[in-house]
C-alpha cells in the first residue's frame, strides 16, 4: 500500500530513485513497475485525492489483462464499489443499433476514473510515495547523473526531488515531454463528459456521429441510475462545438437540466514520433507520449502498457548505473509496439470509416486547437 509523501515544516527536498510525474493509469503502472524492482519511487499528482477525469472509464479486456499482469486487477476491480461489468457493448449510429460486441470470457469494466485512478494509487507498493496537489514545473540535470524535479504545492511552496530517473506521465497537456523532445509529436483530441440520471441505458454504447466526423459519443452506465455521457472529437474541434453536440446528446436521451461538462484532451499517436526517452534518464508514456489510439481515442490500454514498460525501463536505467541503452530500447519498443498496434488493419479500417477519419482530417489535427472549455 502506497504512502502519502509528507513534508515537515520548512522541508523542501527529498531524495528517491525514480520520480513519476502524473498519477493516472500510466503513472501508476510506471510507479508500480519501478517499485517492483525495489526502487524508492515518488509519484507526483497534480490533483487532489479522488479527482475525476473526463474519459477513460472503460477497461477493455486487454486493459484488464494488463492490470492482472501488474498484480493490481483483483483489488482495483473488485474493491471498486462503483465498478460495473458488462459482457457486451453496443455500436450505434443515428440509424440505430449497428452491432453488439460480445465479451463472454472477459468482461468489460466500467469504473469512474475518480475510483479507478485512486484505487490504483492506493494499491501501489509500499516503497511508492504519492504526493498530491503538486505540479511539476521543471526537471533539470544535476551533476553525477542526478535529476532535480521541482514541484509546486498548493500552498505555493516549491519542493525539490532528487532522483536518478523520471517518468513523464502527466497527460496530453504535459509540457515537460515537449521540452525534453519526447512527446511522440502527439496530436490533441478534445473530449467532454458529464454524468446524468438516465434509466434507458443498459449497456455501454458508442455512437458514431455524422455531425462530428471524425468522432463519436458514448454512454456508459454507472451505479445508482447515473450514466456517463461524453463526446470525443478525434481532431481539433472548438469547445463550443463540442458543447453544442453535448446539448444534442442531452436531448436525444431526454435529460433535463444543464449538463456540467468536464473537459479532457487525449494525446493521439501521430506516427511522427521518434523517441520517448532522453539519455539523461527521462521516459514518457501514455498521453504524454502521444500513445492514444488515433482511430478510436482509446488510451487506457496504451497507458497501462506503456506505463509498465516505462517504469521497467527507468528501473533498469537506475540499476544499470545510468546505461542509456535501456532507455533507447524503450523508445524502440514504443515505436515498434504502437506502430504495429495502430497500423492499418481490417478492423481499424472499419472504425476509421465509421468515424469518418480521412487523411485530410488527420493532417489538420497537427495544428491542434486547444479546446477553450478544457
Amino acid at each position: 500500500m502506497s504512502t502519502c509523501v509528507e513534508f515537515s515544516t520548512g522541508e523542501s527536498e527529498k531524495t528517491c530513485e525514480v520520480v513519476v510525474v502524473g498519477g493516472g493509469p500510466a503513472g501508476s503502472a510506471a510507479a508500480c513497475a519501478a517499485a517492483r524492482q525495489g526502487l524508492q519511487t515518488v509519484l507526483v499528482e497534480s490533483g487532489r485525492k479522488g479527482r475525476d477525469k473526463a474519459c477513460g472509464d472503460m477497461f477493455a479486456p486487454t486493459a484488464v489483462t494488463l492490470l492482472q499482469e501488474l498484480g493490481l486487477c483483483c483489488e482495483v476491480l473488485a474493491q471498486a464499489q462503483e465498478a460495473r461489468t458488462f459482457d457486451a457493448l453496443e455500436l450505434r449510429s443515428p440509424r440505430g443499433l449497428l452491432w453488439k460486441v460480445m465479451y463472454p470470457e472477459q468482461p468489460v469494466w466500467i469504473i469512474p476514473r475518480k475510483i479507478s485512478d485512486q484505487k490504483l494509487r492506493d494499491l501501489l507498493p509500499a516503497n511508492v510515495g504519492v504526493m498530491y496537489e503538486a505540479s511539476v514545473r521543471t526537471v533539470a540535470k544535476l551533476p553525477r547523473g542526478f535529476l532535480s524535479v521541482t514541484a509546486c504545492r498548493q500552498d505555493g511552496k516549491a519542493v525539490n526531488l532528487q532522483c536518478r530517473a523520471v517518468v513523464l506521465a502527466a497527460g496530453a497537456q504535459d509540457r515537460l515531454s515537449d521540452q525534453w523532445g519526447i512527446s511522440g509529436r502527439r496530436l490533441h483530441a478534445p473530449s467532454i463528459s458529464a454524468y446524468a440520471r438516465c434509466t434507458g441505458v443498459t449497456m455501454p454504447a458508442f455512437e458514431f456521429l455524422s455531425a462530428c466526423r471524425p468522432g463519436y459519443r458514448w454512454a456508459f452506465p454507472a451505479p445508482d441510475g447515473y450514466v456517463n455521457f461524453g463526446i470525443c472529437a478525434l481532431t481539433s474541434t472548438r469547445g463550443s462545438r463540442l458543447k453544442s453536440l453535448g446539448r444534442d446528446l442531452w436531448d436525444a436521451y431526454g435529460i433535463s437540466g444543464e449538463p456540467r461538462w468536464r473537459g479532457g484532451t487525449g494525446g493521439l499517436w501521430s506516427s511522427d514520433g521518434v523517441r520517448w526517452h532522453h539519455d539523461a534518464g527521462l521516459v514518457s508514456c501514455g498521453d504524454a507520449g502521444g500513445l492514444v489510439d488515433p482511430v478510436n481515442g482509446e488510451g487506457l490500454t496504451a497507458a497501462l502498457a506503456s506505463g509498465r514498460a516505462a517504469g521497467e525501463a527507468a528501473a533498469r536505467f537506475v540499476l544499470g548505473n545510468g546505461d542509456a541503452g535501456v532507455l533507447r530500447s524503450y523508445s524502440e519498443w514504443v515505436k515498434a509496439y504502437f506502430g504495429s498496434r495502430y497500423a492499418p488493419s481490417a478492423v481499424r479500417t472499419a472504425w476509421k470509416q465509421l468515424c469518418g477519419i480521412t487523411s485530410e482530417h488527420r493532417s489538420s489535427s497537427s495544428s491542434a486547437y486547444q479546446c477553450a472549455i478544457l
Partner: protein
Amino acid sequence: MESTIAPPLAMLRESAGVVHDELLALLRDSVSARFSPDPEGSPERIAGYLEDGLSLLTSRGFRLDSEVGLSMESFEVCRRLADQDARFRFIYRLPSSVGWGAAIGAAIGRALYGETHDGVRVVTATLNAFMTFLDGLLDEAPDVFNPHRESLLQLVRDTELHNGTRNGSVPRDHPYNTMCFLIARLWIDHFNRLSPPSQPGGLRNEFLCAALRSMAVEYSACDSRFGGAPPSMDVLYGRTSWPLWTQALAVMCQHGRPADVDLGAFRKLIFRIGEYAAYLDDVRDYITDCAAAQWNTVSLAYYSRYPFPIDGAGVTQRQLLANLADDAFAEAVIQTGSELCDSIEECLVGLRGVDSDSLRPLLADLTYEYLC
C-alpha cells in the same frame, strides 16, 4: 538458398513501402477527379455504406434468423476467433462489403430503373459479403476451406433445381466454413424472395450461372501463386467483374429486362467498372500480394510487358518489388488506370437508357476507398 536471399528481400520490402506510397499518390492525382462531381462527399458516403452494412447485418432486412441459421452470436464466434488467429481477420471486412454491396445494388437500380428496391439491395449486399468471405477463406486459410470447394458450388447449382436451399449442406468442421455456407444460403434465400418470385429460366438462370462463374473465377485466382504458371488476366479481372455482373443481374431479376437498354453494352460497362475496381485494389495491395506470392493484375501486366524468368517465388518477389522504383513501371501503372477510366467513360457515353449520373458517385467512392 532461401536464407541467403532473405535479408535483401526484407530490405527491399521495407524500402518498397515508401515508393509504393508515392505511386499511389501519383495514381490518385491522375484519376481521382475523373468521376467525382463531389469529391468531398466520398468519406461521408463511405461511412454511410458501412453504417448501412452494419445495420443490415443486425436489424434491417438481413434477417439473421433461424431459417438460415445465422445469428449475431455466430458472427461473434468468428470475430473472437479472428482475435486469436490473424488469418481470419478478414471477417472485419464483412460489414463494409455488405454496405458496398447494398450501395452497388442501389446505384445499378437507379441507373437502370430510376429506383432502388430493398429486396434487391439485400441480395446484392449478401452476395458481396459472400464473395468477400470466400475470397478471405481462399486467400488466408485455404487448408481450412479447400475440402468444401465442390460442395459450395453444388449448393448454388442446387438452387437452379430446387429453387431453394437444402438444410443438410452446411459443414460444421470449422466456424468459418459454416459461416461461408450460411452466407451463401442467405443470399440464395433472399434471391428466391425477389419479385417476380421463382421466375423459371431467363434472367434467373443467367444470375445463377454468373454466380457460379464468380465462384469458379475466385477459385482459379487464388491458385495463382508465384512459382507456377501465371494466370490469365481474364481470371484476375474476372474475380471482381463477374460478381459485379451477378449483382447487376439480381437487380434485373427484380425489375425485369430494361426495355430500352442494350444489355450487351450494359454488360460491357459493368465489366469495365469491375476491372477498374480490381485494378485499384491491386495497385493498393501490390506489396501485400507480392509478399503473399500472389499474382495480381498489376504484377501480371508488368510481367506480360517485360517477361522475366520465373525461377521460384523469391526471385519473382524481388523482381516485382524492384519494379516499383522503375519510372517506366510507374508510368505504365498510371497509364493503365487512365485507360480504364477512359473505357468506362466510352461505355457510359455510348449507352442509352442508363442514367450514368447514378453510377458516377459510386465510381468516385471506389476510387477514394482504394487510393485515399
